[in-house]
């Protein structure tokens, strides 16, 4: 990854120097050794801030929405999940492809920040759960690719055996309806409705979110079981079929709510109902919940 | 007995009292004036000119409005229909019970105005906060110097307080009225043009001025006043921000370290220059 860091800095410098882009979105070291937050570099002399290490969790594609109406091009580094996020934003007509210079980087999986904090810098820190289950560690769309593409593809191929991991969802499915209700009620009881999960999510790209329209009466501002459940369900259903499994919602949640479990349940259901589908892999306008197919199941009609 | 300012502070300041709307005047197609009393026909509170009140239809919402006038037993609020609550208020009829709390904010510095000539400049619904002060000057005419009012709206129909403009105020001694509308229209033989240009054309001598209206009017009137030599401490305006508590606690109406609901809404240009331009 050190090598890729150097290549990142080199390419960023070149793009900025040549004036091909106004800003490069990457990662830099944060307050603690296990934090590598987003970095926005707009001067060639600042490229040395950029790093690529085990903690570059942040999905940078969402930030591209901030540059939609600005002059000039933007370069962004994309891991596998970030590239799927970019595709979802293209699919949702939020971004114009030509405006962005995409620099793909292979991802060995990011490490669990909570465990890093717990085990310390010399500890044996496992990959984040979302990364253990990742099917697409390499970017699917890019203009440049840093690192060894062949080796990265091979690594991804051997990893795939581990994917399709739904044991936690299956565990939840075994619960009775009452148990499920109790489980999710207690999880969302501690939701503080900070909306970090929404704001970090590339699939949450509405111009005006329903949860910001408190004056319309869809949702009240009160923090209570019923409003929190309404929030939880609406958010989950709204990203269903478009969740690219970057796991950022769960990582961003300050209250440890297992949001990905809910997202994964919907992914599993969609796969079972409409056939195998991975969001953000292709941009073809054929979304499982946004596209009518004569063969779609319709038991409810 | 009306509740005094001190008494209001002793009772829970966030809980409104019940009041009722006894009269509704259609000022313009989208502005109505509401006359409000307590259930036993008293003034809900005794506001200073320029102070604010929190009016609510509790099931729909609560919002801050300037009190445009007070009578012996009532207060008045002129309200433009712009959002959910104000649209609902425009639907109510006389006799409707509402929640009210106040008075809030600093109000106009009456002592500063005493004995001075005053120029009032208003645009559209911007005359609402100014009217409370004009009414004070009219009621206590001997305390103030010459009164000049420049007021403009998009059309004749959009002029607020027509009864004051065309019947009451013309009879007030030593008071000049300059009313203008944006575009020519049939049946209007008064001045046509925008307020800032009219103010410039009228070439007032520097004096205390109270200026309220849409941001674009303020933006272009200020340089005109400055060019005519008006001093910053003599240019007084009122600001509007989204408000919820009205007592300087809930946070959102801050401009720098100032809370508009508590430290405002009345500010001099001198004060505004000290604040960040975030309003």
């Amino acid at each position, binding site marked *: 990854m050190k090598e890729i860091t150097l290549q990142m800095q080199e390419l960023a410098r070149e793009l900025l120097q040549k004036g091909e882009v106004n800003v490069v979105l990457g990662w830099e070291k*944060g*307050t*603690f050794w296990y*934090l590598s937050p*987003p*970095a*926005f570099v707009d001067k060639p002399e600042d490229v040395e801030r950029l790093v690529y290490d085990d903690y570059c969790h942040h999905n940078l594609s969402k*930030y591209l929405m*901030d540059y939609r109406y600005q002059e000039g091009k933007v370069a962004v580094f994309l891991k596998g999940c970030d590239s799927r996020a970019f595709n979802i934003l293209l699919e949702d007509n939020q971004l114009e492809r030509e405006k962005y210079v995409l620099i793909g980087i292979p991802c060995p999986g990011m490490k669990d920040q909570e465990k890093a904090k717990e085990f310390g810098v010399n500890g044996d820190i496992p990959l984040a759960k979302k990364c253990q289950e990742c099917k697409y560690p390499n970017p699917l769309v890019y203009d440049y690719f840093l690192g060894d593409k062949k080796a990265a593809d091979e690594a991804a191929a051997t990893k795939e055996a581990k994917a399709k991991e739904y044991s936690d969802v299956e565990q939840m499915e075994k619960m009775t309806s009452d148990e499920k209700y109790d489980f999710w009620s207690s*999880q969302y009881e*501690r939701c*503080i*409705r*900070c*909306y*970090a999960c*929404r*704001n*970090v999510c590339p699939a949450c790209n509405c111009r005006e979110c329903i949860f*910001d329209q*408190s004056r319309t009466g869809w949702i*009240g*501002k*009160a*923090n209570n079981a019923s409003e929190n459940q309404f929030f939880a369900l609406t958010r989950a259903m709204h990203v269903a079929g478009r969740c690219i499994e970057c796991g950022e919602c769960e*990582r*961003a949640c*300050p209250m*440890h709510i297992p949001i990905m479990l809910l997202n994964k349940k919907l992914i599993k259901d969609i796969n079972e109902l409409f056939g195998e589908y991975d969001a953000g892999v292709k941009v073809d306008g054929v979304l499982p919940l946004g596209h009518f197919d004569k063969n779609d199941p319709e038991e409810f009609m | 007995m009306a509740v005094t300012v001190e008494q209001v*502070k002793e009772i*829970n*300041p*966030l*809980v409104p*009292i*019940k009041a009722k709307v006894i009269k509704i005047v259609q000022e313009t197609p989208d502005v109505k004036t509401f006359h409000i009393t307590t259930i036993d026909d008293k003034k809900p509170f005794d506001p200073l000119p320029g102070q604010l009140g929190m009016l609510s*239809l*509790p*099931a729909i919402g*609560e*919002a801050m409005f300037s009190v445009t006038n007070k009578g012996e037993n009532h207060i008045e609020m002129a309200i433009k229909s*712009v959002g959910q*609550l*104000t649209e609902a208020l425009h639907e*109510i009829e006389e006799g*409707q*019970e509402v*929640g009210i709390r106040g008075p809030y904010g600093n109000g106009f510095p009456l002592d500063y105005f005493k004995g001075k000539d005053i120029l009032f400049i208003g645009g559209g619904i911007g005359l609402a906060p100014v009217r409370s002060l004009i009414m004070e000057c009219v009621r206590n005419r001997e305390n103030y110097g010459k009164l000049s009012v420049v007021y403009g709206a998009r059309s004749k129909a959009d002029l607020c307080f027509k009864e004051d403009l065309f019947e009451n105020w013309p009879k007030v001694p030593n008071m000049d009225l300059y009313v203008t509308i944006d575009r020519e229209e049939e049946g209007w033989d008064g001045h046509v043009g925008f307020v800032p240009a009219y103010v410039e054309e009228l070439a007032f001598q520097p004096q205390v001025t109270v200026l309220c209206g849409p941001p674009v009017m303020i933006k272009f009137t200020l340089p005109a006043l400055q060019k005519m030599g008006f001093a910053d401490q003599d240019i007084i305006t009122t600001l509007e*921000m*989204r408000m*919820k*508590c009205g007592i*300087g606690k*809930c946070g*959102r109406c801050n*401009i*720098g*370290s100032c809370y508009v609901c*508590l430290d405002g809404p009345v500010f001099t240009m001198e004060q505004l220059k000290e604040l960040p331009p*975030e309003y």
Partner: protein
Amino acid sequence: MMKIIAKERLPEVLQLLAKDYNVLVPAKFEGVSRFTPYSADVELALEENVLMPPKDIFFPQTEKMYKFKAKDKSLEIEELPVEKEEQLIFGIRSCDLKSLECLDQVFLTKGYVDHFYKDKRDRTALIALSCLQPQEACFCGSMGVDPQNGVGADIQAYDLKDKIGFKAISAKGQEILEKISGLLAEEEVTIPTFGEFNLKADIEGVPEKLQGMFDHPLWADICRKCLNCGACTYVCPTCHCFDIDSEVRGEDGVKIRCWDTCMFGEYTQMAGGHNPRPTKKERVRNRFMHKLRYFPERYKMLLCTGCGRCVVKCPVNLDITAIIKKIKEAE
């Protein structure tokens, strides 16, 4: 000499106090620690400060204010009965005591007293607990807080590793101490030395310097990674913004107030559509200006206690100590 008890016998003290008070203690459930009503099966979390600050004890995230009934033209408004129960917080840290000083300024001064806050503040006794060592993100020392001696508590308790020591500060504290004195021994103790802070912030001159920095380009830079979520403000012990809303069922309704955050666009959005803080630049600037400049100007104290919660919980590591540093270094 100090009154002490062995740490493992602390539940006996809490049990005894629970006879007279609703005792709130730090406890952790599913990865989130907060003050929780004490009962025998609550496991105390005393190693580090709680994630959720004690502000919600005085200023709940959602609080009912009054009831109303609206039918046709009629309206009834009814105040809600006031809780009478005396409560006691055990284990509040110095940084969070400092936050109560800030909240007291907001809710109890400048002409209006917030009855909802005052009522809870008046019937809550505070037993502070000293910190043994700083957590990774703690920087209270930089914000003028002494982690071993809180200000404003009724009793200061000292974490003596295997024991807890108690020192009454107020008359109310003296009274509480007498209630539990039967369980306490008297002993000569040494308060353990407090370790080095990992995180520091040099705040000197920052409020003054910010006076001229409203239009500084630094805000456009700082704001870029901010998600405009409310995590920082909701875990902050001093952030106190609220919204007022109603819950209506047919003719009946309850007016509530609930936490709000200056990070949300809707917060300052006016009915006509105008928004004085339309983008994240203005919102981020307001948040840090409020903490480091506006609040000190209005109330003569910082609106940051160095508790470090926002540093831990910000999903994008928008670290207030780093921002203070940037302000210091800005030209």
